């Protein structure tokens, strides 16, 4: 109970809400590092997953390569990238991007594969060209799974961005590493709480985005099963 109280005191202390080590500064740093990593990761992973999923080729290769990526410890990549690129945000973003890619490749590949072949054929029959078929028919149907991949990546990246502090980076990880070094365990726990809250907020925000992006027609498909049956028999 004492720990909880001291953490609450720490978090509500005005001194911790200003300056270069204040919560707002660390929040912006954390969002910047994770946001850039997820965006770069998405720019690499989504086209690969979507195109391979559409053609249904090299799926095993893409999945295996990205799963090997999952097996590489982020901390090893971080330290290695630091040796090459030196101090700054570049090594951090490299390590986090590598972490962000696998779930997005896997999910978007599966999402495109799962699109009903009848629908694809109907689209072709109606005269859709390949790009239009991907963009206007398959992708809208694939959105829920693709977004689930982005969400998984983003939450992982936000939680792992704490490692940045190990190589002198910013973000909420600073409180964890500094709290450990200074034997200030209140600070350490407060840092952990902030990271957890940010990860949950990320999850919630991306769920909201998903709701906006999923076309209305597909949302109708997700109504309770009894009604769906009525739909199909009608």
């Amino acid at each position, binding site marked *: 109970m004492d720990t909880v109280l001291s953490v609450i005191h720490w978090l509500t202390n005005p001194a911790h809400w200003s300056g270069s080590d204040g919560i707002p500064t660390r929040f912006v740093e954390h969002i910047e590092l994770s946001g850039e990593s997820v965006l770069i990761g998405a720019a690499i992973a989504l086209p690969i997953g979507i195109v391979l999923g559409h053609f249904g080729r090299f799926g095993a290769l893409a999945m295996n390569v990205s799963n090997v990526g999952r097996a590489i410890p982020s901390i090893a990549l971080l330290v290695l990238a630091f040796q090459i690129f030196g101090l700054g945000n570049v090594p951090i973003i490299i390590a986090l991007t590598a972490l962000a890619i696998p779930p997005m490749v896997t999910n978007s590949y599966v999402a495109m594969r799962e699109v009903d072949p009848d629908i694809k054929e109907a689209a072709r029959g109606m005269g859709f060209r390949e790009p239009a078929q991907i963009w206007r028919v398959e992708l809208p149907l694939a959105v829920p799974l693709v977004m689930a991949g982005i969400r998984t990546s983003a939450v992982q990246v936000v939680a792992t961005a704490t490692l940045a502090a190990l*190589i*002198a980076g910013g973000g909420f990880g600073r409180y964890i590493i*500094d709290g450990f070094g*200074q034997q*200030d365990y209140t600070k350490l726990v407060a840092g952990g709480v902030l990271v957890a809250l940010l990860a949950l907020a990320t999850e919630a925000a991306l769920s909201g985005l998903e709701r906006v992006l999923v076309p209305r027609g597909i949302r109708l498909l997700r109504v309770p099963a009894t009604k769906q049956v009525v739909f199909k028999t009608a």
Partner: protein
Amino acid sequence: MNWRARSAFLATVLAFAMTAVACGSSPSSGGAGSTPKGSITLAGFNFTEGSVLAELYGQALEHDGYSVQYKLNLGNREVVSKAIESGSIDLYIGYAATDLEFYNKGAGEATGDAAANTAKLNGHLQSLNLQALNPAAAVDQNAFAMTKANAQKYNATKLSDLAAVGNQLVLGGPPECATRPFCKPGLEQTYGIHFKDFKSLDPDGPLTRAALANNSIQLGLVFSSDGDLNSLGLTVLQDDKHLESADNVVPIIRSAVVTDEVKKVLNAVSAGVTTNDLIDMNNQAGPQHMDPDAVAAAYLQKHNYFS
């Protein structure tokens, strides 16, 4: 998995486990069977300077006719102190302030005076049947380094020069530097340096060096006997108001082993070795990857300990 595959898998796992156990418990070579006279077991800490110092004092004893068993890289102070208290080693080369604060359990007695630190250390060692001999002039303690370019720009040779320009400087060090009296708070109180910012890095490691090199910090915490500072274009500012406690090199030995002759040999080494000597030797043994025993032998040869 079928039965055969599974048993093969289990056998492999078991083999690994047994290898790991075997590696973990290599039989300790018995150092206890040393003869009362003439044989001394000497331990070194688990960093380069620890090996250099152990070889330095050890070879001086060997030259005098003692048989010396080396246990280099034995561990940190927690391990080495246990070993000497239990009598499995006879001697290690410690540091006056750090060892004082270790044996007094962090009571904060250490000052900038090496002789006083050693005297107080001896007070704590007595009940353990240990004693500290004369401290050397060589010091390995916290120091603050700047790039030579910045030192020129701010016209700084000593820490008190920085009081006027502190608001332009970012200090870098391990996270605990922000709260420990020997570091940022000490620089503020003793020297009146109020930094623009503080950056959490590492204790005298690659992050601090990288941050100094790209000027994201202007002053960094290092150790005074680091061998690579000069080649990195770094200069240590003089601690002219004695913020840091004097961490002079000092041999710590079991009272059961110490004789006048042993004392004489060890004190003679301590009387000669300076911080610059230590920097040179650390540079050869560290960045230049020479063997610590060769480095120590060359030093003793050059300074006529072998004649």
